[in-house]
């Protein structure tokens, strides 16, 4: 088990690299592998590459591929930790109110200034999360059952606010709609850089707590009696995952299913323990989002919102896994 899990984790890393290369050579504009290699060489050594090809490769496809990997990783790891902490297989990173909070921020942003959309989306996502947490604190720690309900209630409230803002100012409907559907079309190296920084800041935290996450699956009482300060771990993990999810959402909007499905696929392959799952689930998330986005940006009728593709991939996978579980 352990040996094969190592092998699998490493092969997932290789798969990701292969996916990157494949994705790099696919797009609405046909560019052959040879042209890619030639122009990469010319571009890297400042030797007058073909402008069209090098711009498409280095300023459009590559930053977008990087964004897909970073966001997929974030959604995968947040999805996993959310499912673990809530002990709920339907948990996703938006459970604490992130998505609807961000939607309100975005809607306000399009009223004020589009440059404020990411900032406001992030602020309002964290506001929604904060309200959910405040509601569900009891005896000095987060009550997860309360938090699910609080998350749902806060989501309803914020969704209503977002809808009302959109309804009031119909001219911005288009912007908010695009934003709500989510997409990686806005990818730039700058976005990639900041999200990457956030990711490498939170990843070690999640990895550090993987032992505790395993034990917390056994429930609060057992975890505590085994010596896990589960109240503290819950608060830290949920805050960190909400924070990084909000950051991702503020850049790419709301992309569903990746955070929900990746942990399930990972569990089927490396088992329940977070020892490997903490690496495998985000890697699967990265691959799902990268493949989905490659399809989304290469469609013959122009770009398709990537959330539609992730749902098309994610829902059947989830149904398959449920059938497998039932037969077991």
């Amino acid at each position, binding site marked *: 088990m352990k040996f094969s899990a190592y092998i699998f984790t490493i092969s997932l890393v290789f798969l990701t690299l292969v996916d990157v290369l494949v994705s790099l050579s696919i797009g609405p*504009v046909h560019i052959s592998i040879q042209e890619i290699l030639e122009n990469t060489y010319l571009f890297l050594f400042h030797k007058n590459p073909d402008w069209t090809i090098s711009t498409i490769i280095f300023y459009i496809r590559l930053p977008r591929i990087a964004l897909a990997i970073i966001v997929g990783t974030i959604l995968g790891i947040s999805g996993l930790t959310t499912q673990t902490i809530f002990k709920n297989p339907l948990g996703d990173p938006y459970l604490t109110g992130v998505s609807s909070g961000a939607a309100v921020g975005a809607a306000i942003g399009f009223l004020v200034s589009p440059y404020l959309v990411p900032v406001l989306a992030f602020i309002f996502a964290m506001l929604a999360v904060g309200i959910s947490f405040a509601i569900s604190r009891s005896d000095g720690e987060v009550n997860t059952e309360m938090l699910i309900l609080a998350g749902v209630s806060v989501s309803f409230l914020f969704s209503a606010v977002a809808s009302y803002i959109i309804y009031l100012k119909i001219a911005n409907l288009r912007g908010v709609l*695009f934003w709500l559907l989510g997409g990686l*079309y806005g990818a730039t190296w700058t976005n990639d850089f900041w999200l990457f920084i956030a990711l490498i800041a939170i990843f070690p935290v999640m990895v550090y707590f993987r032992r505790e996450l395993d034990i917390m699956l056994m429930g609060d009482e057992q975890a505590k009696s085994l010596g896990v300060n589960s109240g503290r771990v819950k608060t830290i993990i949920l805050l960190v995952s909400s924070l990084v999810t909000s950051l991702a959402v503020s850049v790419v909007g709301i992309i569903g299913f990746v955070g929900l499905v990746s942990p399930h696929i990972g569990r089927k392959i490396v088992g329940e323990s977070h020892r490997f799952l903490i690496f495998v689930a985000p890697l699967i998330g990265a691959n799902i989002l990268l493949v989905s986005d490659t399809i989304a940006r290469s469609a013959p009728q122009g770009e398709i919102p990537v959330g539609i593709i992730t749902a098309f991939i994610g829902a059947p996978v989830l149904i398959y896994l449920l059938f497998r579980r039932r037969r077991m």
Partner: protein
Amino acid sequence: MNPKLIASIIVVIVIAASVSVVYAETYKQKVNASTITVTDDLGRKVPVKLPVTRVVSMDPSNTQMMYSIGAGSLLVADTSYDWWPANSTSLPHVSMDSPASVEQVVNMTPDLVLATTIQPAQIINQLQNLSIPVLVLEPQNISNIYTDMLTLGKVTNHQSGAEKEVNYMKSYIHGVESNVSAYLNLTGNKKQSLLYMMWSTPIYSVGPGSFIQNVLVDAGAYNIASSLNSSYPTVPLEDVVNDNPQAIIVDYEIPGLTNITWFTKGNQSQVWNNITAVQNDNILFFNQTESNWMNEPGPLTIYAVKTVAQFLYPQAF
């Protein structure tokens, strides 16, 4: 259940059914007496009782058609978004924020309502069920505008006004087209390639099957998004790089995208700075009026055609 109750329910149903059949028949006869049936842009056959004296318009483009054929005085209500021929009229406004209030419309006792598909189908059906004829006039191309205006002329008894206006529009468009084709023949230039932007990130544009695409074609543009298989495509940025448009038109009131700095200094400036249209500053930002001409298919669409043509081929005029 009580058999008596069942019996009475059946009796009531039978009576109600026969009454409504009889009523419907008499209504049909009434309709036949002095009505014409016209086909609207949804392909619906709409019987309209003549003469039409009270018209409600639920869209600025419909209002414009009414005035342009000389039937503006028949309007009893219009919308708060109307801006032509006058910025605001003294008429009561129906709420244009869809759905419109059916009550409000019925209260005007109109004998004709003009609408577009901005109004939900339920509203149109509800009015139709109340025996108020609703014409959905939403032309998909310029010749469709002509037929709609002639239809409107027939229904409102302003046939000659409609014909006069349509002839004027035809000659206006013909003038623009012949200027452009003469210029292209003379210089041997190819049509200018154009990116039409209705949103910035992602790039939301128009393609085959949309009204605006037809206007752009009439103005002599090669719309780079027309290769995409959709009426309203989201254009991949790499397509823009590959097609490298010579001109860009930006619709009115896209947040953040009101001048060239969005292209030259924005997030994706590394891409945009090398696009020909950006390098030559050949970008037209529609003002509100220009945007209205483009987005409201009606008598003013001809000015949209000329605006685009003049922008693309300034030497032709």
